[in-house]
């Protein structure tokens, strides 16, 4: 019972912190928040096959075993989220270095208007 409580509250805290950061205005905290959310979902996926202690993850003659499928799913999810995070870091960095501004929202002034004022 203690194990379930620990894992469940870890997922909860990670999700809550992730949600808070995702709602920030600048890209860096938002990316951090998404990373925390993906950690939370990875642990959640892992726990979806039930938590078992010291049981083999294969179907043998043993009466208790750990479900191997969520472990495979988690591996896939980890790889995908890692790749996606790398992509978003690169794009966000490009946007920040290009515009010298890392706000997530659209700028208040339309870039086409700014060009007209400059000319």
């Amino acid at each position: 019972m203690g194990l379930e409580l620990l894992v469940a509250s870890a997922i909860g805290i990670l999700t809550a912190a992730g949600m808070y950061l995702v709602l920030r205005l600048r890209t860096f905290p938002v990316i951090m928040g998404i990373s925390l959310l993906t950690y939370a979902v990875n642990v959640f996926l892992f726990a979806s096959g039930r938590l078992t202690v010291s049981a083999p993850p294969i179907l043998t003659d043993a009466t208790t075993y750990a479900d191997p499928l969520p472990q495979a799913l988690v591996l896939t999810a980890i790889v995908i989220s890692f790749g996606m995070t790398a992509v978003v870091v690169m794009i966000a960095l490009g946007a920040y270095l290009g515009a010298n501004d890392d706000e997530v929202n659209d700028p208040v002034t339309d870039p086409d208007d700014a060009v007209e004022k400059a000319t």
Partner: protein
Amino acid sequence: MMHWIIAPVVLPAILAPFIVLAARYHFGIQRVVSVAGVVAMIAIAAGLAWQASDGTIMLYQLGDWAAPFGIVVVGDRLSTLMVLLTAVLALFVLLYAIGSKWDERGWHFHALFQFQLMGIMGAFLTGDLFNLFVFFEVLLIASYGLMIHAGGNVRLRAGVQYVLFNLIGSTLFLFALGAIYAQTGTLNMADLAQRVALIDPADTVGIRVAAVLLLMVFAIKAALVPLHFWLPSSYAEAPAPVAALFAIMTKVGAYAIIRVYTLIFSPDAAATSGLFDVWLLPAALVSLAVGMMGVLAAKKLDRLVAFSVIGSMGMVMVALSMFTPASISAALYYIIHSTFAAAALFLISDLVRSGRANLKLTAMAPISGAALTSGMFFVAAIAMTGLPPLSGFLGKLMILQAGFDTNMATWIWAVILCSSLISIVGFARAGSTLFWKAKSIEPDEETVPEPAPAALSYVAIGGLLTLLVAHTIFAGAAYSYAERTAAQLFAPLPYVSTVLDTPGKLSTPSKETY
């Protein structure tokens, strides 16, 4: 076992690395390989659609492992129809990208394009929820690259928003999958269909949460209000051919809703009752209204088209949320129509853009080739707003007819008809400002007029408009096929038995493993 059904996934997966590795610096070879690949894909997709048209359900077990343990690819009427639609759209988009030289403005356009097709085809063909997630990620990561193709600060910022929104969507998708697996112990769609039906009605908390989470994920993909905020900026700032290809991406969300909520959560299941008529239908009506008001309020042509995509997806979702065979058939007819209409409008807005400083809806000197461009805009706008005689009108009529017997009929009719009127005003105002008022402005003598767009660009848009006309002329045949597709969807037993009863390795699992 027939291997052709995996070809729409495998073919682009081979072509894309070939383009990157062997033809990196040769745009000519890239173009030839890319177009040849898409033409071959149309042939394969047409073959598959023809095979599925008699109601056959095609099954492909990867590595000969039997479902639910192995990965399966399934082709029925709906998925082969969507594959064919994607392949045809891809050809015209590709022709435009070549004609307008968009593919030369950055690296790896053709490779990313093929990967994007691979993801979309896989999402339509897979018979497994986790693979649906994986193919979503494949199409998304390719779309991230395409979205920021050719770079620029504005586009990069829009790209960041697009990627962040979709990453949150993917995380939600994983939460939903975890909840489903925890409840049922499987992620194969056919297996899920059986097991969800077996869940004790008193103990449906987990599966209800999963059903709502999944619906939210697909609603993000389909840009349903209030989950649509990613769409206007990213579609408006994406390169035009990419935005035109993205016209099918919102339909992937609609497809996933149709597939999951006919097969896994059957329409009359107690666990998901109220999900559609209480929640989805009002949201769909609001997105129809918001989209069409956005058309009227937009200050730039690309935003206008992006909001018309939200509006037309709202129309599709109104039809879907009624969830009767008639309304699903109407939705399928409208999906085909709105894909071609939205793609044509995005490409036309790029033609306008190539002759002007920006796309703001103010009068400027006439663009080169204005006569033909404005004619095409006229036809595409008629199709998108749903005026007679084109297919948008017929599709809207089918949706109105399907909504006549429901108890929300007043709302459905009122919102659809009013929003149509608003969108007509929006498109008429945009067209007359861009093309008509331009005649009153003297061109600046110092500026050299832009050369007229390439003939290939016009061929691509003309092809899309021709398909819309054909979709109108053969509306009877198209609608009866959509009806047969819907009938197959509402009788999922052959699908389930084909997937689960086809022998393969491990086909007789011992029952006590669960």
